[in-house]
């Protein structure tokens, strides 16, 4: 490969930093740059870089998922901790992914399922080309009840926006 993907993206980021294409405004692979927007009812509330998320108490577990061949370890703050950190109470979340995947979820369901905002896979930050920057992950192996469409559909990869409702 003559040009690395990273160089290309960086170039793009520099070139199109001010572009008005909503979700691809920054280089999502830079851990220091804000990648996760938090909104309340459509209005911006906060933005988090993955460094910010890594600074929160981390939860790590290894689990099998439908999207990996073998057990994979994930690491990131618990959704519950994250929401506490944001300091806004919400009963429902609108989760939006880079690929326009949108899903609504009850906070209680996600928290009960032990959801984390995974930022690392097998110890490395998730690149956008591999489900990054943030992957809502559940410890599927720890509870059979998680093996359902209800949770699989909430395991949002390339998560970039959380709207509190």
């Amino acid at each position: 490969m003559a040009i690395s993907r990273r160089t290309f993206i960086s170039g793009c980021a520099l070139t199109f930093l001010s572009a008005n294409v909503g979700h691809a405004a920054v280089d999502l692979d830079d851990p220091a740059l804000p990648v996760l927007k938090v909104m309340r009812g459509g209005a911006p509330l906060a933005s988090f870089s993955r460094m910010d998320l890594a600074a929160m108490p981390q939860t790590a577990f290894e689990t099998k998922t439908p999207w990996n061949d073998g057990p994979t370890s994930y690491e990131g703050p618990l959704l519950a901790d994250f929401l506490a950190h944001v300091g806004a109470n919400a009963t429902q979340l609108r989760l939006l992914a880079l690929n326009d995947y949108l899903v609504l979820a009850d906070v209680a369901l996600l928290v009960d399922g032990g959801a984390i905002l995974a930022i690392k896979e097998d110890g490395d930050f998730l690149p956008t080309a591999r489900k990054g920057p943030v992957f809502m992950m559940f410890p599927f192996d720890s509870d059979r009840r998680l093996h359902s469409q209800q949770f699989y559909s909430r395991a949002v990869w390339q998560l970039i926006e959380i709207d509190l409702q």
Partner: protein
Amino acid sequence: MTSSGSGQSRGARWFVAALLAATAALAFLAMETSVQTDNYHRGLLDASSYNATFDYARAQLETERLARSIEGYAAGRATQAQIATDFDILRTRLDTLPVTITGRPFRDAVAARDDLSQACDEIEAMLPTIADPASAGHAVARLDEVARSISRLATVANAVQGDIVAGWRQRLSDSLADLGLHLRLLCGIGLLLVVVLIQQKLHFRRRALTDPLTGLPNRASFRQWPQRAVGANEIAVAIVDVDLFKEINDSCGHQSGDRLLIGLGAIFRGAVGRRDKVARIGGDEFALMFTGRGALERASEAAALVTRRFGQQDLGLADDRRPTLSVGIAASNGERQLEALLIDADSAMYAAKKAGGACIVTASEDFRRDLEFRRRLQRDILHASQRNEFDLAFQPIVDVGELRAHSFEALLRWQHPELGRIPPDLFIPLAEESGAIIEIGRFVLDRALSIAANWPAQLTVSVNVSALQLSEKSFVRMVRETLKRNGVPASRLILEITETALIKNANAGKILDDLRRLGVGIALDDFGTGYASMGYLQQYRFDKIKIDKSFVSTMNEEGKSAAIVRAICALAKEISATVVAEGIETEELLSLVGAAGCDFGQGYLFARPMSALQTALFIEKNGWGGVATPRRPAGEMAELTVVPEAWPMPGPAKAPGPRLKSVS
């Protein structure tokens, strides 16, 4: 009936066993089906837990989006950053594109992913030159090709996953239907089992309380009567016993006896009402219970009805004999317990039996009092000997020719401390019934011999022996020892034995022979009252025959009696026995018995029974040596009458006569 009953219960047992086996088999099956259902359920959950089709559709969309971005970039509508993002998004699909469906490898998906992977590599290589329309055209064409193949994958996967889910659903619903069926069957069989077991239990209980022969309630059921009689104001019970049942069994066979009992059972059922109870409480013994208004009347009517109908039963005997019943009835108006009534009714039944059977006896107040009195005597008699309540009286047996006392009969007297003199006719049968007569008999013999030991050696003493004593093994030894102890030679003892006693003892002959060998004289007592069989006179050797006073006292009235007495005397001479006529009360009778050939007489004409002391005086007064005869003028004899009898005579009043009649 019994065999069919056990056959029925054996059948029921098999049925229960089959039900149990079916229950076990079904339970096993249900468990297995349940596990299977669980597996199918899990399978269904797994199959429906992840929708692969959705991912394929999304992948198709993302592929096309990248193509549109590249097209847009060429046309100036899209940025390079957007291409980069869309490319990242598509590359993520390399990881997330499902290549298995419900755990099974999905070949089409693997091929599609490999194609996508290859396409990504190609696109990545083209990206630096993406602004070039030819390069962009290549990339777009390649992406559209991949999008089409992923689109086909989505539709195939939709059908495949649908089939798999449908398969699990079908298996699950089949399994659930099986499980439901098994459970329903299990419940049904369980219910049936409970019903059968309850029925069986009821059947066994009923059988335990039923007499198999007659179908009537049995003794176990009868034992529950007291609970049922509680609270009844009027109660009457009847005890019914078939007369001579043993003889019927012996002569007609047990089957006839059984038939008779079955018939009697049917008669009972027809004779008692629904409120009344009947039970077979023994071999040929039945009990009836009537409660409520008019219980006694109903009991009496039922007893009469049963007796009449039973009498109509044909025994099939040659002599056309009809079976009869002995019935005892007892009733109470609430003041007596059922148990007491049953005892009374039983006693009444025995009274009916004693009276010869074919008879209904109701235990009246008098009957009960009499019964109680007898029971008391029976209790008291056991201690009478220790308490010195017995004594002996002696009545002379007189030579009718010389009018000289030849022997004395020892007679037992009982002075009850509270009831006074008890007649021997009353207490002797009671003592025989209870067995106390054996002890009493020993006492009488001992006392009689100890008194006779002081008499002149010519005088003999007669002592009565009961049937029960005779049946005692050690009787002969006891007689020998008693004689020895009192120093009285055996020749001075005469044992008086009744015909009945001989009948009741199968080996009477041997005992009499042993006694005779000992030297003891044997008298046949009360001859003429029993069977009066000449056969006995032939079979056994008697030294004396005592003709019952019932013959003697009527000698002057009926010509026949005199003829019988004469015949007996003649017979006695033949077998070299002497004859004693009992009940000599008048001179006329004395001369009659003398003329008939009797050797001796006994009766009030000579003397009433006297105490030992009086007897000694009597012997002294009348003299007893060589030729001295008791023929004294009446005046002289009056001296004897001065001495009063220690006790008044029991039984029907007997006119006191002169002690010894002078015939000068």
